[in-house]
Protein backbone atom coordinates (compact mmCIF):
# COMPACT_ATOMS: atom_id res chain seq x y z
CA UNK A 1 0.00 0.00 0.00
CA UNK A 2 1.26 3.49 -0.77
CA UNK A 3 2.25 5.79 2.03
CA UNK A 4 -0.81 7.97 2.66
CA UNK A 5 1.19 11.16 2.70
CA UNK A 6 3.78 10.76 0.01
CA UNK A 7 2.57 7.93 -2.15
CA UNK A 8 5.85 6.08 -1.63
CA UNK A 9 4.97 2.45 -1.41
CA UNK A 10 6.36 1.29 1.91
CA UNK A 11 4.01 1.09 4.85
CA UNK A 12 2.57 -2.38 5.15
CA UNK A 13 4.36 -3.58 2.02
CA UNK A 14 6.34 -6.80 2.06
CA UNK A 15 10.04 -6.00 2.50
CA UNK A 16 10.81 -7.23 -1.01
CA UNK A 17 8.33 -4.82 -2.61
CA UNK A 18 9.69 -1.98 -0.47
CA UNK A 19 13.22 -2.87 -1.55
CA UNK A 20 12.29 -2.90 -5.25
CA UNK A 21 10.17 0.28 -5.10
CA UNK A 22 13.02 2.09 -3.43
CA UNK A 23 15.67 0.81 -5.83
CA UNK A 24 13.56 1.81 -8.84
CA UNK A 25 13.52 5.43 -7.66
CA UNK A 26 16.93 5.57 -6.01
CA UNK A 27 19.50 8.24 -6.87
CA UNK A 28 21.12 7.15 -10.12
CA UNK A 29 24.76 7.62 -9.21
CA UNK A 30 24.43 6.14 -5.74
CA UNK A 31 22.47 3.15 -7.04
CA UNK A 32 25.11 2.28 -9.62
CA UNK A 33 27.92 2.93 -7.14
CA UNK A 34 26.35 0.63 -4.55
CA UNK A 35 25.84 -2.12 -7.13
CA UNK A 36 29.47 -1.90 -8.22
CA UNK A 37 30.48 -2.31 -4.59
CA UNK A 38 28.48 -5.50 -3.97
CA UNK A 39 29.06 -7.06 -7.39
CA UNK A 40 32.45 -8.63 -6.52
CA UNK A 41 30.91 -10.20 -3.41
CA UNK A 42 28.32 -12.14 -5.42
CA UNK A 43 30.72 -14.32 -7.37
CA UNK A 44 30.10 -15.23 -10.97
CA UNK A 45 26.76 -14.18 -12.38
CA UNK A 46 24.83 -15.19 -15.47
CA UNK A 47 22.89 -12.50 -17.30
CA UNK A 48 19.51 -13.98 -18.21
CA UNK A 49 18.17 -10.75 -19.71
CA UNK A 50 19.41 -7.22 -20.27
CA UNK A 51 17.18 -5.32 -22.66
CA UNK A 52 14.74 -2.52 -23.23
CA UNK A 53 11.10 -3.23 -23.95
CA UNK A 54 7.57 -2.05 -23.44
CA UNK A 55 5.13 -2.37 -20.60
CA UNK A 56 1.51 -1.67 -21.45
CA UNK A 57 -0.18 0.48 -18.83
CA UNK A 58 -3.90 -0.09 -18.28
CA UNK A 59 -6.11 2.37 -16.43
CA UNK A 60 -9.58 1.92 -14.96
CA UNK A 61 -12.22 4.24 -16.40
CA UNK A 62 -14.09 5.97 -13.58
CA UNK A 63 -17.42 6.03 -15.44
CA UNK A 64 -18.04 2.42 -16.48
CA UNK A 65 -15.17 0.80 -14.54
CA UNK A 66 -13.63 -0.47 -17.77
CA UNK A 67 -9.95 -1.33 -17.79
CA UNK A 68 -8.34 0.00 -20.96
CA UNK A 69 -4.83 0.53 -22.29
CA UNK A 70 -3.54 4.05 -21.79
CA UNK A 71 -0.33 3.43 -23.73
CA UNK A 72 3.05 1.78 -23.45
CA UNK A 73 5.98 2.74 -21.26
CA UNK A 74 9.56 2.08 -22.29
CA UNK A 75 11.46 0.22 -19.59
CA UNK A 76 14.91 -1.24 -19.08
CA UNK A 77 14.95 -4.76 -17.71
CA UNK A 78 17.76 -6.85 -16.20
CA UNK A 79 17.55 -10.41 -14.93
CA UNK A 80 20.57 -12.18 -13.48
CA UNK A 81 21.32 -15.48 -11.79
CA UNK A 82 24.15 -16.36 -9.44
CA UNK A 83 26.16 -19.30 -10.79
CA UNK A 84 26.96 -20.98 -7.49
CA UNK A 85 23.66 -20.39 -5.67
CA UNK A 86 19.98 -20.65 -6.65
CA UNK A 87 19.52 -16.91 -6.41
CA UNK A 88 18.15 -14.54 -9.00
CA UNK A 89 18.10 -10.77 -9.17
CA UNK A 90 15.71 -8.64 -11.18
CA UNK A 91 15.42 -5.01 -12.06
CA UNK A 92 12.95 -3.01 -14.13
CA UNK A 93 12.97 0.76 -14.34
CA UNK A 94 11.20 3.29 -16.53
CA UNK A 95 13.48 4.56 -19.29
CA UNK A 96 16.33 3.21 -21.40
CA UNK A 97 19.10 2.96 -18.83
CA UNK A 98 20.22 -0.67 -18.91
CA UNK A 99 22.97 0.00 -16.38
CA UNK A 100 20.40 1.27 -13.92
CA UNK A 101 18.23 -1.84 -14.35
CA UNK A 102 21.32 -4.04 -13.96
CA UNK A 103 22.35 -2.21 -10.80
CA UNK A 104 18.87 -2.85 -9.41
CA UNK A 105 19.11 -6.55 -10.30
CA UNK A 106 22.54 -6.85 -8.68
CA UNK A 107 21.31 -5.26 -5.45
CA UNK A 108 18.16 -7.42 -5.51
CA UNK A 109 20.36 -10.53 -5.80
CA UNK A 110 22.63 -9.25 -3.03
CA UNK A 111 19.61 -8.77 -0.77
CA UNK A 112 18.44 -12.31 -1.50
CA UNK A 113 21.90 -13.67 -0.82
CA UNK A 114 22.20 -11.72 2.44
CA UNK A 115 25.34 -10.01 1.14
CA UNK A 116 26.53 -6.93 2.97
CA UNK A 117 23.19 -6.75 4.77
CA UNK A 118 23.95 -3.89 7.10
CA UNK A 119 25.20 -1.56 4.40
CA UNK A 120 22.32 -2.58 2.12
CA UNK A 121 19.78 -1.89 4.84
CA UNK A 122 21.29 1.54 5.39
CA UNK A 123 21.30 2.26 1.65
CA UNK A 124 17.62 1.36 1.30
CA UNK A 125 16.63 3.35 4.39
CA UNK A 126 18.57 6.38 3.17
CA UNK A 127 17.08 6.24 -0.31
CA UNK A 128 13.54 5.71 1.01
CA UNK A 129 13.97 8.79 3.18
CA UNK A 130 15.28 10.80 0.21
CA UNK A 131 12.32 9.71 -1.96
CA UNK A 132 9.82 10.56 0.78
CA UNK A 133 11.44 13.96 1.25
CA UNK A 134 11.26 14.71 -2.50
CA UNK A 135 7.61 13.71 -2.63
CA UNK A 136 6.84 15.72 0.48
CA UNK A 137 8.51 18.80 -0.95
CA UNK A 138 6.44 18.46 -4.11
CA UNK A 139 3.24 17.95 -2.16
CA UNK A 140 3.88 20.97 0.05
CA UNK A 141 4.08 23.04 -3.14
CA UNK A 142 0.89 21.38 -4.37
CA UNK A 143 -0.88 22.07 -1.08
CA UNK A 144 -0.06 25.76 -1.51
CA UNK A 145 -2.46 25.74 -4.49
CA UNK A 146 -5.44 24.44 -2.51
CA UNK A 147 -8.39 26.74 -3.15
CA UNK A 148 -11.60 27.40 -1.25
CA UNK A 149 -14.19 28.35 -3.83
CA UNK A 150 -16.86 30.85 -2.90
CA UNK A 151 -20.07 31.55 -4.76
CA UNK A 152 -22.14 34.70 -4.55
Amino acid at each position, binding site marked *: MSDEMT*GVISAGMPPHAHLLNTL*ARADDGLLKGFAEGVLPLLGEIEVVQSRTGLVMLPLRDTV*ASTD*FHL*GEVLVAEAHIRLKDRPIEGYG*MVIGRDLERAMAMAVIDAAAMAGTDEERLGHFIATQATRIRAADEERL*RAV*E*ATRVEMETF
Partner: protein
Amino acid sequence: MAYVATRGGERAIDQSERLYRADLGEIDAQRVTAIRQSLPWLIDRVMGEASLYEPDLAALALAQSGGDLYEAVLLLRAWRTTQPRLAIAEPVRQEDLFTVRRISAAFKDIPGGQILGPTLDYSHRLLATGVLEGQPFVPTPVEPAARPAPARQPSLAAWQKSVGLVADVPAAPVAPDDIPDLTREPLLFPAKRAHTLQSLARADTGGVLALGYSAMRGYGNAHPTVNELRLAEAELKVRHPRGTIFSGGRVKVSQAEVTNKGKSGKLDLGFCATLGWNEVKVIAGATLDLNAPGAPKNSAVNEEFFLYHTEPVEASGFCIHFKLPHYVTFQSSLDALRDAKAKQAAPAAPAVLQRQEEPA
Protein backbone atom coordinates in the same frame (compact mmCIF):
# COMPACT_ATOMS: atom_id res chain seq x y z
CA MET B 1 -7.34 5.47 -54.97
CA ALA B 2 -4.42 4.31 -57.00
CA TYR B 3 -0.75 5.02 -57.05
CA VAL B 4 1.44 4.72 -60.06
CA ALA B 5 5.03 3.57 -60.00
CA THR B 6 7.34 6.23 -61.33
CA ARG B 7 11.02 6.15 -62.21
CA GLY B 8 13.69 8.76 -61.97
CA GLY B 9 14.38 11.50 -59.49
CA GLU B 10 16.61 9.48 -57.17
CA ARG B 11 19.19 12.24 -56.97
CA ALA B 12 16.53 14.91 -56.37
CA ILE B 13 14.95 12.78 -53.64
CA ASP B 14 18.30 12.29 -51.95
CA GLN B 15 19.11 15.97 -52.15
CA SER B 16 15.68 17.00 -50.89
CA GLU B 17 16.18 14.94 -47.73
CA ARG B 18 19.63 16.47 -47.32
CA LEU B 19 18.13 19.95 -47.72
CA TYR B 20 15.46 19.21 -45.10
CA ARG B 21 18.03 17.93 -42.63
CA ALA B 22 20.51 20.70 -43.40
CA ASP B 23 17.85 23.26 -42.54
CA LEU B 24 17.44 21.60 -39.14
CA GLY B 25 21.15 21.53 -38.51
CA GLU B 26 23.18 19.23 -36.32
CA ILE B 27 21.28 17.28 -33.69
CA ASP B 28 23.20 16.21 -30.63
CA ALA B 29 22.38 14.98 -27.14
CA GLN B 30 22.57 18.50 -25.74
CA ARG B 31 19.89 19.73 -28.14
CA VAL B 32 17.65 16.79 -27.26
CA THR B 33 18.09 17.45 -23.55
CA ALA B 34 17.26 21.13 -24.05
CA ILE B 35 14.04 20.22 -25.87
CA ARG B 36 13.05 17.72 -23.18
CA GLN B 37 13.68 20.17 -20.36
CA SER B 38 12.18 23.25 -21.94
CA LEU B 39 9.07 21.82 -23.62
CA PRO B 40 7.55 19.32 -21.16
CA TRP B 41 3.95 19.95 -22.25
CA LEU B 42 4.83 19.36 -25.89
CA ILE B 43 6.77 16.23 -24.96
CA ASP B 44 3.69 15.00 -23.10
CA ARG B 45 1.48 15.65 -26.11
CA VAL B 46 3.78 13.73 -28.44
CA MET B 47 4.10 10.82 -26.00
CA GLY B 48 0.34 10.63 -25.55
CA GLU B 49 -0.38 10.58 -29.28
CA ALA B 50 2.48 8.19 -29.97
CA SER B 51 1.21 5.98 -27.15
CA LEU B 52 4.79 5.57 -25.96
CA TYR B 53 6.09 7.07 -22.73
CA GLU B 54 9.77 7.99 -23.03
CA PRO B 55 10.57 11.71 -22.75
CA ASP B 56 14.07 11.45 -24.24
CA LEU B 57 12.83 9.67 -27.34
CA ALA B 58 9.96 12.13 -27.70
CA ALA B 59 12.45 15.00 -27.51
CA LEU B 60 14.65 13.29 -30.11
CA ALA B 61 11.63 12.80 -32.39
CA LEU B 62 10.82 16.50 -32.08
CA ALA B 63 14.42 17.44 -32.85
CA GLN B 64 14.51 15.20 -35.92
CA SER B 65 11.18 16.45 -37.20
CA GLY B 66 11.90 20.09 -36.47
CA GLY B 67 8.75 20.26 -34.37
CA ASP B 68 6.39 18.73 -36.95
CA LEU B 69 4.15 16.95 -34.46
CA TYR B 70 2.72 14.38 -36.86
CA GLU B 71 6.18 13.48 -38.08
CA ALA B 72 7.38 13.15 -34.48
CA VAL B 73 4.43 10.92 -33.56
CA LEU B 74 5.07 8.78 -36.63
CA LEU B 75 8.76 8.41 -35.71
CA LEU B 76 7.89 7.33 -32.19
CA ARG B 77 5.17 4.92 -33.24
CA ALA B 78 7.52 3.36 -35.78
CA TRP B 79 10.28 3.03 -33.18
CA ARG B 80 7.82 1.45 -30.77
CA THR B 81 7.38 -1.47 -33.15
CA THR B 82 11.07 -2.36 -32.72
CA GLN B 83 10.58 -3.12 -29.04
CA PRO B 84 9.23 -6.31 -27.49
CA ARG B 85 6.35 -6.06 -25.07
CA LEU B 86 7.67 -7.38 -21.78
CA ALA B 87 4.58 -7.14 -19.62
CA ILE B 88 1.20 -5.59 -18.96
CA ALA B 89 1.21 -3.55 -15.77
CA GLU B 90 -1.43 -3.65 -13.05
CA PRO B 91 -4.37 -1.38 -13.94
CA VAL B 92 -4.04 2.11 -12.52
CA ARG B 93 -6.93 3.13 -10.28
CA GLN B 94 -7.83 6.76 -9.82
CA GLU B 95 -7.52 6.62 -6.04
CA ASP B 96 -3.88 5.43 -6.35
CA LEU B 97 -2.71 8.36 -8.46
CA PHE B 98 -0.05 10.70 -7.06
CA THR B 99 -2.20 13.76 -7.70
CA VAL B 100 -0.88 17.28 -8.25
CA ARG B 101 -3.97 18.95 -9.71
CA ARG B 102 -7.63 18.17 -9.16
CA ILE B 103 -10.49 20.52 -9.81
CA SER B 104 -14.21 20.37 -10.42
CA ALA B 105 -16.31 22.97 -12.21
CA ALA B 106 -19.56 21.17 -11.38
CA PHE B 107 -19.18 20.78 -7.61
CA LYS B 108 -17.63 23.42 -5.39
CA ASP B 109 -17.05 21.31 -2.29
CA ILE B 110 -15.72 17.99 -3.47
CA PRO B 111 -14.41 15.35 -1.08
CA GLY B 112 -10.71 16.07 -0.67
CA GLY B 113 -11.06 19.67 -1.81
CA GLN B 114 -9.87 21.45 -4.92
CA ILE B 115 -6.18 21.79 -5.71
CA LEU B 116 -5.20 24.03 -8.60
CA GLY B 117 -1.73 22.53 -9.06
CA PRO B 118 0.49 23.78 -11.90
CA THR B 119 -1.70 25.91 -14.19
CA LEU B 120 -1.93 29.21 -16.06
CA ASP B 121 -5.74 29.16 -15.99
CA TYR B 122 -5.99 32.32 -13.92
CA SER B 123 -2.90 34.13 -15.21
CA HIS B 124 -2.38 37.08 -17.52
CA ARG B 125 -0.93 35.84 -20.78
CA LEU B 126 1.93 38.26 -21.24
CA LEU B 127 4.85 37.62 -23.53
CA ALA B 128 8.11 38.17 -21.63
CA THR B 129 9.73 40.26 -24.36
CA GLY B 130 12.41 41.38 -21.94
CA VAL B 131 14.04 37.99 -22.42
CA LEU B 132 14.95 39.05 -25.95
CA GLU B 133 16.61 42.13 -24.53
CA GLY B 134 18.81 40.20 -22.15
CA GLN B 135 16.56 40.10 -19.09
CA PRO B 136 16.09 36.43 -18.19
CA PHE B 137 12.62 35.41 -17.05
CA VAL B 138 13.16 33.94 -13.60
CA PRO B 139 10.03 32.30 -12.17
CA THR B 140 9.03 33.27 -8.65
CA PRO B 141 9.37 30.22 -6.41
CA VAL B 142 6.30 28.63 -4.80
CA GLU B 143 5.78 29.37 -1.14
CA PRO B 144 5.20 25.82 0.07
CA ALA B 145 2.48 25.03 2.59
CA ALA B 146 3.47 23.96 6.06
CA ARG B 147 2.12 20.48 5.50
CA PRO B 148 1.98 18.47 2.30
CA ALA B 149 -1.17 17.76 0.31
CA PRO B 150 -2.37 14.17 0.48
CA ALA B 151 -0.66 12.26 -2.31
CA ARG B 152 -3.87 10.49 -3.15
CA GLN B 153 -7.24 12.12 -3.66
CA PRO B 154 -10.62 10.40 -3.50
CA SER B 155 -12.61 9.74 -6.64
CA LEU B 156 -15.45 12.21 -7.17
CA ALA B 157 -17.30 9.76 -9.41
CA ALA B 158 -17.13 7.12 -6.68
CA TRP B 159 -18.74 9.55 -4.25
CA GLN B 160 -21.41 10.46 -6.82
CA LYS B 161 -22.15 6.79 -7.33
CA SER B 162 -22.40 6.21 -3.59
CA VAL B 163 -25.04 8.94 -3.21
CA GLY B 164 -27.00 7.88 -6.27
CA LEU B 165 -26.15 10.87 -8.49
CA VAL B 166 -24.46 8.67 -11.08
CA ALA B 167 -25.30 5.16 -12.20
CA ASP B 168 -22.93 2.69 -10.62
CA VAL B 169 -21.39 0.22 -13.05
CA PRO B 170 -19.43 -2.34 -11.05
CA ALA B 171 -16.04 -3.33 -12.43
CA ALA B 172 -16.07 -6.63 -14.29
CA PRO B 173 -12.82 -8.43 -13.55
CA VAL B 174 -10.63 -8.70 -16.65
CA ALA B 175 -7.15 -10.19 -16.64
CA PRO B 176 -4.61 -7.64 -17.94
CA ASP B 177 -3.80 -9.97 -20.85
CA ASP B 178 -7.46 -9.96 -21.88
CA ILE B 179 -7.96 -6.21 -22.04
CA PRO B 180 -8.88 -5.40 -25.66
CA ASP B 181 -5.83 -3.90 -27.37
CA LEU B 182 -6.04 -1.70 -30.46
CA THR B 183 -2.37 -2.24 -31.25
CA ARG B 184 -3.08 -5.91 -31.87
CA GLU B 185 -6.66 -5.98 -33.14
CA PRO B 186 -8.73 -3.79 -35.44
CA LEU B 187 -11.12 -1.08 -34.34
CA LEU B 188 -14.63 -2.35 -35.16
CA PHE B 189 -18.02 -0.74 -34.55
CA PRO B 190 -19.87 -0.60 -32.30
CA ALA B 191 -16.52 -0.28 -30.50
CA LYS B 192 -15.74 -1.98 -27.22
CA ARG B 193 -15.45 0.67 -24.52
CA ALA B 194 -11.84 -0.36 -23.91
CA HIS B 195 -11.13 0.32 -27.60
CA THR B 196 -12.89 3.67 -27.51
CA LEU B 197 -10.93 4.87 -24.50
CA GLN B 198 -7.61 3.52 -25.81
CA SER B 199 -8.25 5.19 -29.14
CA LEU B 200 -9.05 8.53 -27.47
CA ALA B 201 -5.95 8.19 -25.28
CA ARG B 202 -3.74 8.12 -28.41
CA ALA B 203 -5.87 10.45 -30.51
CA ASP B 204 -4.71 13.65 -32.14
CA THR B 205 -5.15 16.55 -29.72
CA GLY B 206 -6.18 19.01 -32.42
CA GLY B 207 -8.67 16.61 -33.94
CA VAL B 208 -10.25 15.73 -30.61
CA LEU B 209 -10.44 19.44 -29.77
CA ALA B 210 -12.09 20.35 -33.08
CA LEU B 211 -14.76 17.68 -32.83
CA GLY B 212 -15.23 18.09 -29.07
CA TYR B 213 -15.49 21.85 -29.52
CA SER B 214 -18.22 21.41 -32.11
CA ALA B 215 -20.18 19.42 -29.52
CA MET B 216 -19.56 22.08 -26.87
CA ARG B 217 -20.86 24.78 -29.23
CA GLY B 218 -24.14 23.00 -29.72
CA TYR B 219 -23.63 20.51 -32.53
CA GLY B 220 -23.71 17.69 -29.99
CA ASN B 221 -26.55 16.62 -27.74
CA ALA B 222 -24.98 17.26 -24.33
CA HIS B 223 -23.23 20.36 -23.03
CA PRO B 224 -20.29 19.43 -20.81
CA THR B 225 -19.33 20.68 -17.38
CA VAL B 226 -16.03 19.43 -15.95
CA ASN B 227 -16.94 17.00 -13.21
CA GLU B 228 -13.33 16.28 -12.33
CA LEU B 229 -10.03 17.11 -14.00
CA ARG B 230 -6.91 15.50 -12.68
CA LEU B 231 -3.19 15.72 -13.43
CA ALA B 232 -1.19 13.05 -11.71
CA GLU B 233 1.57 10.49 -11.78
CA ALA B 234 0.78 6.78 -11.95
CA GLU B 235 2.94 3.97 -10.62
CA LEU B 236 4.01 1.43 -13.22
CA LYS B 237 3.30 -1.69 -11.18
CA VAL B 238 4.99 -4.77 -12.61
CA ARG B 239 5.65 -8.30 -11.42
CA HIS B 240 9.05 -9.56 -10.25
CA PRO B 241 9.87 -13.14 -11.38
CA ARG B 242 9.31 -14.23 -7.77
CA GLY B 243 5.79 -12.76 -7.87
CA THR B 244 6.32 -9.53 -5.95
CA ILE B 245 4.38 -6.59 -7.39
CA PHE B 246 6.49 -3.44 -7.36
CA SER B 247 6.66 -0.03 -8.98
CA GLY B 248 9.28 0.57 -11.66
CA GLY B 249 8.67 4.32 -11.38
CA ARG B 250 5.96 6.84 -12.18
CA VAL B 251 4.57 8.29 -15.41
CA LYS B 252 2.51 11.43 -15.89
CA VAL B 253 -1.18 10.92 -16.72
CA SER B 254 -4.19 13.18 -17.10
CA GLN B 255 -7.85 12.34 -16.96
CA ALA B 256 -11.18 14.13 -17.08
CA GLU B 257 -14.82 13.42 -16.51
CA VAL B 258 -17.42 15.77 -17.93
CA THR B 259 -21.05 15.68 -16.89
CA ASN B 260 -24.52 16.57 -18.02
CA LYS B 261 -27.98 15.93 -16.65
CA GLY B 262 -29.16 12.65 -18.11
CA LYS B 263 -32.66 11.59 -19.09
CA SER B 264 -32.79 8.95 -16.37
CA GLY B 265 -32.77 11.54 -13.57
CA LYS B 266 -29.10 10.93 -12.89
CA LEU B 267 -25.96 12.63 -14.12
CA ASP B 268 -24.34 11.27 -17.25
CA LEU B 269 -20.53 11.20 -17.34
CA GLY B 270 -18.03 11.13 -20.18
CA PHE B 271 -14.44 10.04 -19.60
CA CYS B 272 -11.06 10.40 -21.24
CA ALA B 273 -7.47 9.89 -20.09
CA THR B 274 -4.08 10.01 -21.73
CA LEU B 275 -0.39 9.56 -21.06
CA GLY B 276 1.25 12.86 -20.11
CA TRP B 277 -0.44 16.07 -19.08
CA ASN B 278 -2.84 17.34 -21.72
CA GLU B 279 -5.98 18.98 -20.34
CA VAL B 280 -7.47 20.12 -23.64
CA LYS B 281 -7.41 16.61 -25.01
CA VAL B 282 -8.99 14.89 -22.03
CA ILE B 283 -11.76 17.49 -21.63
CA ALA B 284 -12.58 17.42 -25.35
CA GLY B 285 -12.28 13.60 -25.43
CA ALA B 286 -14.57 13.21 -22.43
CA THR B 287 -17.07 15.53 -24.17
CA LEU B 288 -17.08 13.23 -27.20
CA ASP B 289 -17.54 10.21 -24.92
CA LEU B 290 -20.44 11.96 -23.17
CA ASN B 291 -22.14 12.78 -26.47
CA ALA B 292 -21.54 9.46 -28.21
CA PRO B 293 -24.48 7.36 -26.94
CA GLY B 294 -27.30 7.60 -29.48
CA ALA B 295 -25.46 10.12 -31.67
CA PRO B 296 -26.69 10.30 -35.28
CA LYS B 297 -24.54 8.42 -37.79
CA ASN B 298 -21.94 10.65 -39.47
CA SER B 299 -22.31 13.41 -36.90
CA ALA B 300 -19.12 14.67 -35.28
CA VAL B 301 -20.07 13.05 -31.99
CA ASN B 302 -20.81 9.67 -33.54
CA GLU B 303 -18.18 7.29 -32.18
CA GLU B 304 -17.23 5.85 -35.56
CA PHE B 305 -16.83 9.36 -36.95
CA PHE B 306 -14.64 10.80 -34.21
CA LEU B 307 -12.50 7.73 -33.61
CA TYR B 308 -11.69 7.33 -37.30
CA HIS B 309 -10.96 11.01 -37.80
CA THR B 310 -8.76 11.64 -34.77
CA GLU B 311 -6.19 8.89 -35.33
CA PRO B 312 -3.15 11.11 -35.96
CA VAL B 313 -0.91 8.81 -37.97
CA GLU B 314 -3.65 7.59 -40.29
CA ALA B 315 -5.20 11.02 -40.71
CA SER B 316 -1.95 12.88 -41.38
CA GLY B 317 -0.68 10.04 -43.56
CA PHE B 318 -3.84 10.09 -45.63
CA CYS B 319 -3.65 13.85 -46.01
CA ILE B 320 -0.04 14.01 -47.10
CA HIS B 321 -0.24 10.97 -49.34
CA PHE B 322 -2.05 13.20 -51.82
CA LYS B 323 1.35 14.69 -52.61
CA LEU B 324 2.48 11.39 -54.05
CA PRO B 325 2.07 10.67 -57.77
CA HIS B 326 -1.58 10.12 -58.69
CA TYR B 327 -0.94 10.38 -62.41
CA VAL B 328 -3.17 7.47 -63.40
CA THR B 329 -6.17 8.55 -61.33
CA PHE B 330 -5.77 12.18 -62.28
CA GLN B 331 -5.29 11.23 -65.91
CA SER B 332 -8.63 9.45 -65.79
CA SER B 333 -10.18 12.61 -64.32
CA LEU B 334 -8.66 14.64 -67.13
CA ASP B 335 -9.96 12.13 -69.67
CA ALA B 336 -13.43 12.41 -68.15
CA LEU B 337 -13.19 16.20 -68.22
CA ARG B 338 -12.12 16.26 -71.86
CA ASP B 339 -14.80 13.76 -72.73
CA ALA B 340 -17.43 15.93 -71.03
CA LYS B 341 -16.18 18.99 -72.89
CA ALA B 342 -16.27 17.11 -76.15
CA LYS B 343 -19.82 15.97 -75.43
CA GLN B 344 -20.79 19.54 -74.57
CA ALA B 345 -19.45 20.68 -77.90
CA ALA B 346 -20.81 17.72 -79.82
CA PRO B 347 -24.60 18.48 -79.85
CA ALA B 348 -24.03 21.70 -81.75
CA ALA B 349 -22.55 19.91 -84.70
CA PRO B 350 -25.47 17.57 -85.43
CA ALA B 351 -27.88 20.52 -85.06
CA VAL B 352 -25.96 22.45 -87.64
CA LEU B 353 -25.84 19.41 -89.81
CA GLN B 354 -29.55 18.93 -89.31
CA ARG B 355 -30.25 22.52 -90.22
CA GLN B 356 -28.03 22.14 -93.20
CA GLU B 357 -29.93 19.06 -94.14
CA GLU B 358 -33.34 20.63 -93.61
CA PRO B 359 -33.51 22.52 -96.90
CA ALA B 360 -33.23 19.30 -98.66
